[in-house]
């Protein structure tokens, strides 16, 4: 590619251009290449648009509303076998079950209503079913029948899945986990008007209501060392509570809390950790006077109660740690579901959502955390007998008063997230107050995911703020000096060196920050503060002293070499600051500065904190800002500065009044681009902070940024899950942040370039 080649090549193409076919072939190639290049060039816009729209495409489903579709309606199977007490759907949405008040269980096809199996519960002669409830937890698949003679029958409904001929076949069956003989709950033989049960692995608790008493019966399996079959020990207790009005009994799955609700809105909470001496923790009215409680259900995990009343309001009550350290029931939020009484509440089994049905048969699906109304479908006005939601919450069946079952397919993928739950305070279960919390996953399936991006955005801005605090003065002042005062000879080396700093992999900076700088700062905290004061001070002193040096010394070093002379001064004063650090701490703060902050101001100290991040990320951002700002200052037209100097201004006056003013848009865009980089930096914050998503302004506390959060959690999130999409949302937010900064910076720079060329 020497210069000589060029004419040779051109002349050969001149000769070629005389051929006819060849000519056309050349033109064709030329045109093709033109299109190719145009497409390639526009491809850049396409790429950035693709990134944006792809992120949007993944995020979008979070915010679309759910849909429910009535697929089929069929007659209630085996209507003659009694009134429906409960409906149930199994995991695969193939088989549903209807439990009747006559002790029959009818299994039928969810889609068509075709009867698959009917079976009667074994109830002894002479006794009648007076009460019924679903056992807790729902996943156990148990129901209990309370009988008129003080006995109870527990039945488990199970589904056996087999694959004959590679086709899935689901066979329902009923089993009796506590034996086929009814369990004697009430020795006196009083009718069990209401009953509830919680079945655990080793222990089960029954709570029953007779005429005006509440009984607790607790069975505990004593495990012996050698056999699985232990002996059952039974403890019984009567709760001292006037039970006459009690209409709903709920026991949580840990068998520690018992909730009794009466129709008129009285809630009594008992602590039944000790099964022999249950104690009343709280008693209060939980609905407005004049209304009645029409339905009650636990939200999954049994930490909150959903209470539906006759005015169509569903309120969520949760145990909240109060000021005096005790737990009290408090209303966390409420949903206005309908104007009619809420007759049924079905909690989703795996999410914090629930389905409500009102007296008119209107169907609603809500999510508690995000406070979203996902689905609202009007009913036919004929009233509702029973309704249920499938375990995966994608199918619902509703039996209406005109003895039809309607089969709904529900598409409700991401109810957990709403704009409100992402950006505003949310009152999570068991939290004392609404708060911003990011806690996306846990080992426990009862977990309420907490997707508040606010602490992450806060962390991002905090990290960027401290980084800019470090980077801006150093980079801008350095740029001013390098571009305007430094001798060209030195600038030739200094500029590439600082730009080289930008090429350092951030993973190395992060590693140094986390494993070298963080312990160092912890040890020499006072030294760092001393350094901040001592270095500028000694520079000033030195420069003041400089003018009194003999002229011969001064002249041996011409202007523009100041920064070279200052290097030993700075190193010396920094060394001094570090040296005095420990003596200073023990002298002034009686121990360490960290402890002093802790005891005096209550400011805790994390080893990997915002200070470390600020320094490390500042280091990473300096070259970006420096390089652009230096260019901006350097390319200020010379005639401006020369003119100013000629008019008698000092070089510093020229700098501040002429050069900086002219270059200010460029400097602004440098800061913008630096900020964009600080906001999106991942590895440094990942390694130099503890990655704790806390909202604390303190410089000694850790933080978690959007970018680090993505890097930490993305590999573990399931594709297309809510968590995955929320992480994409975080990426989109980052993208938007930097897009705004960069576009702004680029537009300003383009303007500036035009301005310079016109000057």
């Amino acid at each position: 590619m020497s210069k000589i080649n060029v004419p040779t090549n051109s002349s050969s193409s001149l000769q070629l251009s005389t051929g006819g076919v060849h000519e056309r072939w050349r033109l064709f190639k030329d045109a093709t290449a033109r299109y190719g290049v145009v497409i390639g060039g526009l491809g850049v816009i396409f790429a950035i648009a693709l990134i944006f729209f792809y992120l949007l495409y993944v995020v979008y489903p979070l915010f679309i509303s759910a849909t429910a579709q009535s697929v089929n309606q069929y007659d209630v199977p085996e209507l003659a076998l009694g009134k429906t007490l409960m409906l149930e759907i199994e995991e695969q949405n193939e088989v549903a079950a209807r439990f009747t008040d006559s002790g029959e269980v009818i299994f039928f096809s969810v889609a068509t209503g075709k009867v698959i199996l009917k079976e009667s519960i074994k109830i002894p002669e002479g006794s009648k079913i007076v009460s019924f409830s679903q056992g807790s937890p729902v996943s156990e698949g148990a129901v209990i029948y309370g009988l008129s003679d003080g006995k109870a029958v527990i039945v488990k409904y199970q589904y056996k899945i087999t694959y004959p001929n590679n086709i899935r076949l689901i066979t329902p069956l009923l089993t009796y986990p506590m034996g086929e003989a009814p369990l004697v709950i009430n020795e006196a033989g009083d009718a069990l008007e209401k009953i509830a049960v919680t079945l655990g692995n080793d222990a089960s608790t029954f709570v029953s209501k007779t005429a005006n008493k509440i009984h607790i019966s607790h069975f505990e399996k004593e495990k012996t060392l050698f056999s699985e079959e232990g002996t059952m020990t039974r403890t019984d207790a009567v709760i001292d509570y006037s039970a006459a009005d009690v209409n709903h009994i709920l026991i949580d799955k840990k068998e520690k809390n018992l909730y009794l609700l009466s129709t008129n809105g009285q809630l009594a909470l008992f602590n039944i950790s000790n099964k022999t001496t249950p104690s009343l923790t709280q008693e209060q009215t939980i609905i407005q006077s004049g209304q009645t409680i029409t339905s009650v259900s636990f939200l999954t995990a049994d930490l909150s109660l959903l209470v539906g009343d006759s005015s169509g309001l569903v309120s969520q009550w949760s145990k909240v740690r109060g000021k005096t350290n005790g737990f009290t029931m408090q209303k966390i939020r409420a949903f206005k579901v309908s104007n009619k009484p809420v007759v049924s509440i079905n909690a989703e089994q795996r999410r914090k959502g629930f389905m409500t049905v009102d007296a008119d048969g209107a169907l609603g699906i809500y999510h508690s955390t995000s406070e979203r109304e996902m689905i609202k479908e009007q009913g036919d006005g004929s009233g509702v007998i029973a309704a249920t939601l499938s375990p995966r919450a994608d199918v619902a069946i509703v039996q209406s008063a005109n003895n039809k079952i309607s089969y709904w397919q529900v598409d409700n993928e991401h109810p957990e997230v709403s704009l409100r739950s992402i950006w505003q305070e949310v009152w999570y279960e068991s939290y004392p107050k609404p708060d911003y919390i990011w806690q996306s996953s846990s080992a426990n399936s009862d977990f309420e995911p907490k997707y508040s991006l606010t602490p992450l955005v806060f962390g991002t801005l905090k990290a960027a703020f401290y980084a800019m605090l470090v980077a801006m003065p150093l980079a801008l002042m350095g740029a001013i000096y390098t571009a305007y005062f430094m001798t060209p000879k030195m600038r030739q080396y200094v500029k590439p060196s600082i730009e080289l700093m930008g090429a350092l992999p951030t993973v190395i900076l992060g590693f140094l920050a986390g494993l070298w700088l963080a312990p160092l700062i912890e040890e020499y905290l006072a030294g760092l503060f001393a350094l901040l004061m001592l270095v500028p001070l000694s520079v000033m002193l030195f420069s003041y002293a400089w003018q009194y040096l003999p002229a011969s010394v001064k002249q041996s070093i011409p202007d523009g070499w100041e920064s070279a002379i200052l290097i030993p001064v700075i190193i010396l004063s920094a060394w001094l600051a570090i040296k005095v650090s420990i003596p200073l701490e023990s002298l002034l703060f009686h121990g360490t500065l960290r402890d002093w902050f802790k005891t005096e101001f209550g400011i805790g100290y994390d080893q990997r904190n915002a200070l470390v991040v600020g320094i490390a990320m500042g280091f990473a951002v300096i070259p970006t800002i420096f390089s652009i700002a230096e260019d901006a200052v350097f390319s200020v037209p010379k005639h401006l500065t020369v003119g100013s100097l000629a008019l008698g201004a000092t070089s510093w006056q020229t700098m501040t009044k002429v050069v900086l003013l002219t270059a200010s848009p460029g400097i602004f865009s440098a800061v913008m681009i630096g900020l964009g980089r600080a906001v999106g930096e991942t590895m440094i914050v990942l390694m130099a902070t503890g990655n704790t998503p806390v909202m604390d302004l303190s410089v000694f506390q850790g933080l978690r940024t959007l970018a680090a959060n993505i890097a930490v959690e993305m590999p573990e999130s399931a594709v297309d899950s809510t968590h995955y999409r929320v992480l994409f949302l975080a990426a989109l937010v980052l993208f938007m942040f930097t897009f705004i900064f960069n576009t702004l910076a680029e537009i300003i720079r383009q303007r500036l370039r035009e301005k310079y060329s016109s000057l």
Partner: protein
Amino acid sequence: MIKLWFKSGAPWIWLNAAAVSTCMIMVIGVLGLITVRGVGHFWPSQVTQYTYQEEDNTSKIIIGEQVEKSVTPAQMAKATGHKMADNEDTLVQYLIKTGNRDLTGTDFIWIEERNVKAVSEPIDMMVVERREWGNFYGRLVEVKEDGKSIAIENEAWPVLQEKITKTLLLFKEIAHLEKKEIAGVNYGLERLRLKERKLELENHLDAAAKQQIAVEKSAYDVAYKQYQSQLANLYQNIRRDSLLAKTESGDTLEIPLFKIVRAFQPNAMSLLDKIVHYGVKVVEFLSDDPREANTEGGIFPAIFGTVMMVMMMSVIVTPFGVIAAVYLREYAKQGFTTRLIRIAVNNLAGVPSVVYGVFGLGFFVYILGGNIDQLFFPESAPAPVYGTPGLLWASITLALLTLPVVIVSTEEGLARIPSSIREGSLALGATKLETLWLTVLPMASPAMMTGLILAVARAAGEVAPLMLVGVVKLAPTLPLDGNFPFLHLDRKFMHLGFHIYDVGFQSPNVEAARPLVYATALLLVLVIIGLNLAAIVIRNNLREKYRALEG
């Protein structure tokens, strides 16, 4: 006077100068820190024997390398719970690497200088680098073969060295058999299974095909059995020898030789020995596989993975970057579109790298990769082939990330070519394409080179997106090997930058791994600074050249 001085602006100029100095000190300081720590790692340090008195006056022997020294003032030491005598001003502590993790459970201990009663550096102190449990420090007692002693005391050392050399040769042979031959057989069997499954899916699995598969399979089985017996033989040989060593507490420990990488007596080494040792360790670091959860041994797979990824990326990014730059400079009319493209380029450069990772994971891996799997590799379902992070997707993602670097640099190069050259070419009858292809682009090639080098430097140091699209902490196989089709674009790979993050922060024994991380960081910094300097030199030459052309 001072007022006047401030008015002259001199102090502000000095302060600005101080900012530059600070930046320079920081750059040089960081580079120096990495260099010093990274270079020191391979030097064999002396093994010291301390006679140490515990708090309860019992005395014990501690053997190890001094790693760190810390000096704490008395007041602070008291605050952290140390007992200090009145006449003591400072508490001096040493961090000693004692090794022998299998016996004591820790690699390092802190000791206090005031309790050290005697220090010596016995010449017969032996350091054994092992394949598991880290280093061993102690004295050699005897060398055993088949459980029988063959050399004791002074004779043992030369015999041990000889035996270790032999064992290492055997070990190499075993590694070759296992990693190359048997892995090849396994790979062949897997391909056969996939072939069978594919035929089955296409309903072509007839008797003839089955027959052929069975034949091939049996051939593999025969080979496998043969390798297996060779391997058994080798294993028997390699397990024969062992050494018996005495630890600091006087216990003896038998270490099988096949678990030993090397044994040396640092206190007995001359300077030349140490230099040779250093060289060997550096070579091992660059060319060996990692051991002990990446905290020991080499980083060859990480270097290889980085190079492979960067090469793949270069192949992808160069044409696109150059075409976009050519469009901007040579074809487009300067106006709204070019402004838009420039904004897009700047945004591509400014979008956080982790966003590229997210995009790469979602779009390339799951959408493109998932569809490729469905179309071309239905036989391997449910295991994904391209539908999972891997080398190809990592390269494409990073190509997208570094695109702006190439565009900006190439465009700058194109801008420097005087328009007289283009006009000359066009005037002589060349088409625009010919002008471009034969004159402009060759002249701009150093600029493209600069862009590419800068892109490579950027890609080599980037970690965040790679964590999402294909990097793993330990890849069982390299992306390039002797099994057809040789280059495995779907494989996951190791990467220097991620290695630093992983070993420095995710490793169970961070303290022991730290020197290795510094060494890795040094290597990465050297590569990146080298690349950047190369780019700067090329760019400067280019400028000189065109200055001559213009003049």
